[in-house]
């Protein structure tokens, strides 16, 4: 993800993951520094609980550590892989917790942005400004979507709802929801392609 202009080219995520796979703790630490911020924000947004989000992030990196050899570069970037691991762990945890308990939690932590900033996190200032820049790009891309499209994507992405669960929740036909999710993801893909393309090998 990092393309900051520095004197020496930063080690690629792939090279770091490979080294982590051979037992290099520092390489794993560097991957953590690069990716823990957004992964934690995602886990927190999904689980709505700080302790759960941190556990999800820990387990995501532990899994990456154990299964580094299984990462296939052909299938995408390290960031995409980590996000997939993190998101499915967070959603698993929320499903296990049960929907009712979760709704109560969500009400209590309705606004993740307003949560007290406990720390400066692991990001260096350059990493943080890059993250803000990416967040802006994502916000711009989301702004292209219609309100119903954005809602459908949020239900699928953050709540882990299936097409049919979204249709049920919104009281709309399944076909309509499927099309809406597909078109929304296509729009996001087209809008965000310049940003992830540069992260690809």
């Amino acid at each position: 993800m990092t393309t900051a202009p520095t004197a020496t080219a930063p080690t690629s995520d792939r090279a770091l993951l490979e080294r982590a796979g051979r037992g290099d703790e520092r390489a794993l630490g560097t991957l953590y520094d690069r990716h823990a911020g957004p992964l934690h924000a995602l886990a927190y947004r999904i689980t709505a609980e700080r302790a759960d989000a941190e556990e999800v992030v820990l387990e995501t990196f532990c899994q990456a550590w154990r299964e580094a050899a299984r990462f296939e570069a052909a299938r995408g970037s390290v960031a995409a892989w980590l996000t997939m691991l993190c998101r499915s762990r967070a959603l698993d945890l929320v499903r296990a917790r049960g929907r009712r308990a979760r709704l109560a939690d969500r009400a209590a932590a309705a606004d993740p942005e307003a949560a007290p900033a406990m720390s400066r996190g692991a990001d260096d200032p350059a990493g943080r400004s890059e993250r803000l820049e990416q967040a802006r790009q994502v916000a711009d891309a989301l702004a292209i979507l219609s309100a119903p499209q954005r809602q459908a994507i949020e239900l699928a992405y953050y709540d882990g709802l299936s097409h049919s669960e979204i249709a049920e929740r919104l009281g709309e036909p399944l076909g309509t929801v499927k099309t809406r999710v597909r078109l929304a993801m296509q729009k996001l893909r087209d809008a965000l392609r310049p940003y992830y393309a540069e992260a690809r090998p």
Partner: protein
Amino acid sequence: MSSTVPDSLRELAAGYALGALSAEEAQQFEAALARSPDLAREVAEYREVNALLATGAGTATPDPTLRDRLIARIRESKVVPLAPRRPPIVPLLALGLAASAVLAAGLGLRVRSLGGQLRARDSALGVRDSVLAEREGKLAARERTLNTLLEAEADLAIAHLTTTGPNTPGIQLFWNRKASSAVLHAFRLPPAPAGRVYQLWFMRDGVPVPSQTFNSDPDGHALVQAFTVPEGGGFGAAAVTIEPEGGSPAPTTPVLLFGAIVAGS
């Protein structure tokens, strides 16, 4: 671009990357995915989109101690006891299935009693405290395990991996086919030699598909909780070998334990 993938399937790529498909659709899609590099590329793109969306998830930052906790945890997971005894390597065995029906019935009872324990534990945990974060994490893992077992209902498949002889190691494998999630429990399994781990394989038409690596504690126990079963399905048996740390793409040592996968009632 590939003419072999019908549009009806191609249109599921975004939903697949989001995990929004029904189990049936996901199965159909994965079958097509395995044959179409074009489709795989499309899914990969949507996964990049997913990764970028994470940066829009908010500005919450992790606790500064989290990095140290990560390093501590990977060190902890790497501890291999000194001078472990190398378990006997036995040739691949056919498994007698007579016991599997009894096993499945017994597990039904066990799963139900675990459910009671889970509910009891849940109510005891009424009030949460951040001091309990560590324990909650472990509990969450345990809950995932229980969910894998409890929510499978008729889709629970079971394998009992064995070798011959009395007091030999055994492995119970529970596979929730609905959720593509499995739980592995090993007993009387000596820790793997230094630098080595056990690796689980799912057998499809006699071909081993790589899965989890794990190691047992000095008591010979191992519990791998709620891990994802390799894509594709169609697994008829499971096997375990000893492999270098990090696992192998194909077995490099003879099969140590083996068992057929039996569908649930």
